[in-house]
């Protein structure tokens, strides 16, 4: 029984693994160039982190968080973003797929379009950037005075998985929107990359409109800030309940609801079936 289900899973995954495997191999084929890619990606991550540390040279605390606490927020959000960027980042580059006719080619293959798009590429160089996030997170976890319990471990794991899903959903949302938005990439970048930036900051300093956009509609605040507050034992702002840090999975589900709706509308628009 287990054997047959493993075998059928392998059959189901074979098309996607074949493509992803070839992408990974081709990126590593030229060692020197891959090393440079990793290095440049590492630099980008390091600069993002440096920005935060520069800020804390002039102030001791921002929005009630000191530098070590911010490391935790930054590390969580940036790790999740980098991993999502590695595996989903190409989805918000839909116009180039449209121009090259790659999307039409997807239509001629017996797999769902969105799954084909997601598994059509993987950017291994972004592992270097994820490493920056992971280091920041680890340092944040060590330096902060966290009262560890099994619940803390569970929340941390949930936060990372959900944060990854939130950012992945953002990329898919952007891809769907780019079917029908004129200058789509510019518009969606504001939310995808603006969202990443917002996610690595203490959300307690945000104003209300920002909370509306990145607190709830695109739930960036759940990818770093709110789970970090719970880990640290701090109370969330705006009188939000303490347990709100546990709602990251709900944020992930919400983002994917948005993402799939956007994709659906986008594909309908492309096929001209009426929206």
């Amino acid at each position: 029984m287990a054997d047959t289900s493993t075998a059928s899973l392998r059959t189901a995954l074979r098309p996607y693994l074949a493509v992803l495997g070839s992408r990974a191999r081709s990126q590593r084929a030229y060692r020197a160039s891959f090393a440079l890619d990793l290095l440049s990606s590492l630099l980008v991550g390091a600069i993002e982190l440096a920005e935060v540390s520069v800020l804390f040279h002039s102030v001791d605390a921002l929005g009630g968080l000191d530098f070590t606490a911010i490391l935790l927020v930054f590390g969580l959000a940036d790790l999740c973003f980098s991993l999502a960027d590695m595996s989903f980042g190409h989805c918000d580059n839909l116009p180039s797929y449209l121009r090259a006719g790659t999307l039409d080619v997807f239509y001629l293959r017996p797999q769902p379009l969105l799954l084909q798009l997601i598994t059509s590429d993987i950017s291994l160089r972004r592992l270097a950037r994820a490493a920056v996030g992971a280091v920041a997170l680890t340092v944040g976890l060590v330096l902060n005075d966290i009262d560890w319990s099994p619940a803390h471990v569970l929340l941390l794991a949930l936060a990372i998985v959900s944060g990854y899903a939130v950012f992945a959903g953002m990329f898919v949302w952007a891809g769907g929107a780019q079917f029908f938005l004129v200058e789509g990439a510019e518009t969606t970048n504001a939310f995808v990359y603006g969202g990443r930036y917002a996610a690595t900051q203490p959300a307690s300093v945000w104003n209300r409109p920002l909370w509306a956009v990145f607190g709830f509609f695109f739930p960036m605040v759940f990818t770093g800030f709110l789970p970090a507050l719970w880990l640290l034992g701090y109370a969330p702002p705006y009188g939000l309940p303490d347990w709100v840090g546990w709602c990251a999975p709900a944020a992930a589900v919400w983002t994917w609801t948005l993402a799939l709706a956007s994709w659906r509308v986008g594909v309908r628009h492309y096929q001209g079936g009426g929206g």
Partner: protein
Amino acid sequence: MSTPIIETDGLTREFRVRDALRRRTLVAVDDLSLRVAPGEAVGYIGANGAGKSTTIKMLTGILVPTRGSVTTCGLRPVQDRRRLARQVGVVFGQRSQLWWDLPVRESFRILAAIHGLSASEEASRTEELVERLEMAEFLATPVRQLSLGQRMRGEVAAALLHSPRLVILDEPTIGLDVLSKQRLREFLVAERRTHGTTLLLTTHDMGDVERLCDRVLVIDRGRLAYDGDLPGLSRTVGAERVLVVDLAEPVDDLTGIPSTRHLTSEGHGLRQRLAFDAEATTAARVLAAVSERAEVLDLTVEEPDIEDVVRRIYAARR
């Protein structure tokens, strides 16, 4: 007649376009009804923008029809797209199915996985295609380094790897040299003979239609303008063939040869072009008549080109 492999009824596709301030509706395919039987080879021709690509996109489920119905391989293309993909192979002359940075062989391996071919199916089909399309010499070459002719053979093999019942080719020979065209046509003829594959191809090359197709569909502004065989098409439009002769010395314009029209003279009459009605006379008879007046050094016969045929059909309908 067995169940059609392609069946459309009143198939219509409109696009809403916005230019400047006004919105208008553009009808790309207009009330198209046609049937293609399994095993047929059909040339689908028409001017640029006549609706060929739109039809293909509706046949393969990429576009949703505005009105009318379409059935491909007995399936509804949009709703049953994934099942249909297993039975149809499409070659888009302008867009690639191959992975740019990978060797051709690797692309075939991935496509075999995508179509769920077993190891033995993959091996035997790849071997067959490599041999028939003479691809062995460039199997290990990354796609981006291939010549256009090689890449096109790779594209055709990629579209046919899963042994589709229906193969749709959109401008497969565009930009190819004579030898590459010839190879590709021979392959398609052989593929059809051995596997009974149905072919639907759009082309601007009359040679493709002559050598590959036993039926021609002409589409004009989204509507079917002709459906029949090629000789019938030539008869309908009275397409002329052109004999070009290079003469040993300059002579006057070669007029007055029966069923023949003098078109042009170059080099004071050293090279002359004569159009003749292929129904009424033959190239040999025209040549004999020319030889009575001057010594012929060299000659070529130009086939009626597809633009010309299409233009005549269009003119007759307006």
